[in-house]
C-alpha cells in the first residue's frame, strides 16, 4: 500500500545487491533468498499499478518497473568489477526469476486446473502467457548455441528492460550492432517458436 509507511515494505536494496554479488560468485543459495525479495517488490508494484488504475489514471507500468528495478538494486552501493558486470548479472537474475515463475504458474494452471476446467473453457480461454515465457527461454538457449551474443542481447533488452545504449555498454559493442542483433534475434526466435513447436 502506498502512503507514509512504504519504506518498511521495500526490500533493502543493499541486501539484494549483496545477494546478487554472492550469486554472481556462484552461491546458489543466494538465489533462493533473492527470489522472495524480488517477488515482493514486483507484487507491490503490481498492486500500486492497480490502485492507480482504479483511481482513473492510466497504467504506466514501464515507469513503475524501472523504478522497481532501481529500488531493488543498489547499483552504486557495491563496488562492482564494472557496471557492465552488474547489468549482466541483473539481467540473468530477472530472466531466471521470471521464467521460474512462469513455469510455476503454468504448472499451477495445468496441474491444478486442467482436470477441473471444462474442455470448452480450455478451448476458448487463452493459453497462459507463462508457457510462452518457458518456450522462449528454451528458444533462447537454442539461440545461444548459434550466436551467444544475440541471446545476451535478448536477455538484456527483454528480461532486464535495458535500453539499446545500456546493452551496448554491457556487451561492449556499438549501439548499431545491438539494434541489428536485436532484429535478427527476434526474427530467429519467432521462427523457432512458430516452427519448432
Amino acid at each position, binding site marked *: *500500500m502506498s*502512503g507514509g509507511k512504504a519504506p518498511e515494505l521495500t526490500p533493502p536494496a543493499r541486501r539484494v545487491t549483496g545477494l546478487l554479488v554472492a550469486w554472481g560468485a556462484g552461491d546458489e543459495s543466494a538465489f533462493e533468498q533473492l*527470489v522472495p525479495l524480488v517477488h515482493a517488490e*514486483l*507484487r507491490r*508494484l*503490481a*498492486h500500486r*499499478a*492497480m490502485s*492507480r488504475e*482504479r*483511481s*482513473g*489514471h492510466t*497504467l504506466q*507500468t*514501464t515507469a513503475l*518497473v524501472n523504478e*522497481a528495478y532501481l529500488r531493488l538494486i543498489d547499483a552504486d552501493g557495491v563496488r562492482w568489477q564494472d557496471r557492465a558486470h552488474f547489468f549482466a548479472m541483473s539481467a540473468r537474475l*530477472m*530472466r531466471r526469476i*521470471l521464467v*521460474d515463475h512462469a*513455469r*510455476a*504458474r*503454468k*504448472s499451477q494452471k*495445468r*496441474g*491444478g486446473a486442467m*482436470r477441473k476446467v*471444462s*474442455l*470448452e*473453457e*480450455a*478451448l*476458448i*480461454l*487463452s*493459453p497462459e*502467457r*507463462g508457457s510462452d*515465457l*518457458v518456450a522462449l527461454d528454451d528458444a533462447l538457449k537454442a539461440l545461444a548455441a*548459434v550466436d551467444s551474443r544475440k541471446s545476451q542481447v*535478448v536477455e538484456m*533488452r*527483454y*528480461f532486464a*528492460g535495458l535500453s539499446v545504449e545500456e546493452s551496448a555498454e554491457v556487451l561492449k559493442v556499438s549501439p548499431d550492432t545491438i539494434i*541489428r542483433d536485436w*532484429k*535478427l534475434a*527476434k*526474427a530467429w*526466435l519467432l*521462427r523457432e517458436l512458430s516452427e519448432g513447436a
Partner: protein
Amino acid sequence: MAPDRWAEVERIYHEVLEHEALEQGALEPDPGKRAAFLDEACGGDEALRREVQSLLGYAQASDTFLERPALEDEAEELRQEPGPPLVQRQIDEYRILSLLGEGGMGQVYRAKDLTLGREVAIKVLHGLAAGGPGNLRRFEEEARLASVLNHPNIVTIYGVGEKSDLAYIAMELVHGRTLREMLSGDPLSLKVSLDLAAQLAGALSVAHARGIVHRDLKPENIMVTREGRLKVLDFGIAKLHGPRDPATEPRPGSVVHTEDGSILGTVGYMSPEQAAGKRAVPASDQFSLGTILYEMVTGRRAWKRSTAAETLTAIIREDPAPIASAAPGTPKSLRWIIERCLAKDPEDRYGSTRDLARDLATLRDHFAELSGADLTAESAGGPPPKRRGWAAPFIAVASAAVLGAVILLSPLFRKPPLADWVQIGFRRGVVWSGRFAPDGQTIVYSAAWDGEPPRLFSTRPGSTETRTLDLPPGRLLAISSRSELAFLRNLRLGSKLVHPGTLVRAGLEGGVGRDVLENVLAADWSPDGTQLAVAREVAGKVRLEYPIGKTLYETETGGEIWNLRFSPDGAWIAFYEPTGSGTVLAVRVADGLRRVLSDGWFMSAFPLAWSPDGREVWFTPQKQIRDRSPALMAATLTGQLREVTRGPGQLRLFDIAPNGRLLIARWDVHLGLRGFSSFSGRERELSATDDSVLADLTGDGRNVLIFDRQALFLRPTDGSPPLRLGEGLQDARLSPDGKWVLAGSKEGRVLVPVGAGDVRRVAAADECHQTEWLPDGTQFVCERLSHPGIRLSLIEVASGKQTDVAVPAAAVTDFEDGGPVSADGAFLAGSGSRGDVWVLPLAGGEPRRLPTEKGMIPVGWSATGRYLYVERVGSMPANIQKLDLRTGRAETWRDLSLEDPAGIARIHPVMVKDDGRSWAFSYLRILSNLYVVDGLK
C-alpha cells in the same frame, strides 16, 4: 551452423532489409525484387538463400515481438493474481475467495458467509490496531452507525469485526461498475445523469435524516449495477482513514503534495468548508453531489487543477466553467439545481437534502417533457454548440431515447414477433461466421464440416446447392458492396481468444486472394466498398484503423477487438471489446467520438450487426461461460438495451440484410465422455450430463468418475446409470478399493464415501493441488506448488501422517505435472517443462527423465511398469503412444477418435488403466446450424 556461415546469413539478412528500406520505405516488401536481390547476394548457394529467406519471412512479424519488457508482463500477471495472504483464509464466519480490489486503506475481497451461504464483500483494514485502541473503537462505532442505514441505494453493512491485527467490514457484494469507470471522458446522457443523481440524493436524504454524513462522496465511492441501480459505498467509514492515509484524504489545512495528481480524484469532490478544514455537515454531501452531477452532465471535472493545493483553492474561491457553455444542451432547471448545490456557503444550498432529492426525482420523472421545450429554447437562444459538435446529435438521440422508452413502456401495442426460421445447409460441424452478399440473397459462410478445417462456402436460401469457394482455409470477415470478400487465413494460435491471421481480399468467385495485412483480428468494408477498417495487433495492443494506417481507437495492452461493423451510413464503427467489462462500443469515424452501447458481458465469440436503419446494433451475448439461452439483444447509441428474441440454445447473429433478414447460427456445445473396458469389451458413451469431463478411471477399468462442473458422478463403464456423489468436488480420485473419493472441496481435501457414510476431512492435504492414490489405498501422493517448484509428499489416510519425498533439485523445477502412479506404487510419472517425461521413485532416489516430443503427458502405466502410455496433447485424433522405459523409444499405441468426427474440437484428457485394456477420454463437440430468419424486429 558454422560461425562464418552464420555471419554470412546475418550479413545478407541485414543487406536485404536495409536495401528494401531505402528502395521503397519497406511497408510491403516486393517479393519479386526480394527474390532477385537474394539470388544475386547468395550467388547460387541454395542452402544459404533458403536460410536467409526463411528468416526474412519473420522480419515483419517480429517487429512487435518482445518489444514489451518481460517485467511489464510480470507486473500485469501479478496484478491479476489474488492478493497473497488472505485468499482461502477464513475470518470468523467468512471464507475469503478472491481479491476484488485494493485501495488506500486496505483490500476488498469477495468472500462467502459460511453460516448464511451468501457471497459478501469484505473490506479489510490492516494494522488498524496499531493506530491505538481508540482508533479501532471509532472504526467500529462508525461502521455500526452506518449499518443501521437501510436503503436500496446504500450498500448494506452486514457486520464488523477484528481478528489479530486486522479489522474488517462485511458488506453487500455489488456487481457493477464504479461511477468513475462510467465517467471516462464523455458526458453521460441526460437521462442517465438525472436518474443516478436522483438515486444518490435519495440515499443521502435518508442518511442525513439520521444525522449521518458521508464526508467523502466521489465517483470512486459510487457503484452502478448493470440494472442501473446506484449504490453508495463507505458510508461513515471514509472519515476514518483520513489520519491513517494522508494520500487519500488530506488533513485540512495541511500542505498536500501529489506526485501524479492521483489525489485530485479525491480532493476534487470536497466541499469548500471541508477544504477549509471545517467540519462536514449534510450540505457538504450536497456540494459533492453537485460536483459529481456537474461532471456527469458536462464530462468535465468541476475543479480540476494540476495540484491538490490548487484544487482546494479553486473549491474555496472559484466557480467552475458555466454549464451553459460546457454543456449547452442542459435544461435550465437542472442547471439551477447544480448551481445551488455548488454554492460556496452551505447556508445557500438546500436546507434539507430531502428537498434536493425531490427536485431531482421530479425532473427525472418529467424527462420527456424536458427534452422538448426546455432544450430547444435553450439551444435556439444560446451560442452555437462548440464542444466537438456533440450538442446537436445529443438532442436527437435524447429524443430517440425518450421514444425508445415510450415504446418499451407500452408492450401492449407491440405484436409478439412471429419469426420464420429456415435452415441453410445440413452438414454437421461448426459454422464460424457468415455474411449476406450485396444481393441480399447469397450467403457466404465459413464452416468446418465433418472434422475438416474451416472453408468458405456460398449458397442461397431455398437452394440445395452449396458451392465451396476456391480459397485457402480461413474465416470470413466481410463482403463489400462490390462483392469483394475479406477473410483471415493462416490463423495464428496464440494468446488471443479470437485468433489473429493474415487479412486477405478476394473476389466472390474465389481464385487467388491478395494478402493485405498481418496480425488482423477483425475487419469490415466501408459501405461504398472501397476501403477496409481493421482491428490489428500492434505492440501488444489492438488498434482500430480506418482507413488502414489511421488509428481511431486503441485498446489497453492485452486488449482485443472482435467483429467490427460499419453502420449503414458509414458514420460509425461498432465493435466488441471483450477485455475489461465486455463492452459493445461504437466509434464515430469523423472525430473518434466513442459511445458505450452495452457492457458487462462475458467473453465469448460475439458477432454483431447494425439494424438496417442504423439505429441499433444487434448482438448475441452471453452472460456467463455457458449461458444456455442467451438472448438476441439490441442496443442504441445511447445505450438503450432491449431483448429482440430468445432462441433454443446458443444463438450467434452473423449478419442483417438491408431488408431486415437475419443470418443466425445456433450452437450446441456438448462435453462428452467415452470409455472402453475389458469387461464390457466395447467403447461406450459414458456421459453423465451434457457437460461431462473425465475425472478418473479406476485401476480395474470398471468405473469412471465424471465431473460436470457442478456435481461429481460415478459411473460403471458397462453403461449402468451414473451415481451422483456430491457437489463442489474437484480433482477427484477414486480409492483403489472403490469405496472413497478423495477430492478438493471448499472445506479442504475430503474423503467422500461412495456408499453410506460421512464425509471425512483430510486436513494434512489441504494445500495439495493434485493427488494420486498409491495402489494399497492407505496412502496418497500429494503434489504441492512451492518455490521454486513442486513439493511431493506421501500422506497416510488413517493418521494424516506426512512424509516428504526427496526430489532432486533438477526435478523440483522441471517436473511439472504429476500423472499416474505405477502398479507397484513405486513410481510417479509426470511431464516436464522441457517436453519430456519424468519418472520419480517415491521412495527417493534418482529420477529418470525421458526426452519425448513436446506436449506429451503420461496417462497410464503397463502392469509390469515397463511401459508408459503417453498422450500427445492437442492431437486430433488423440495420439496415444507407448513409451518403453527401458529403451526410451515410443511408438503409437492407439489413435483415439469418434466414429462421427463432426464438430469434434478436442479430445482430452485421456486415461489408460488396467494394463492398457481399459481407457476413457473426454471430448468437446460443437455443432452448429445456420438459419435465415425473417420477421424479427
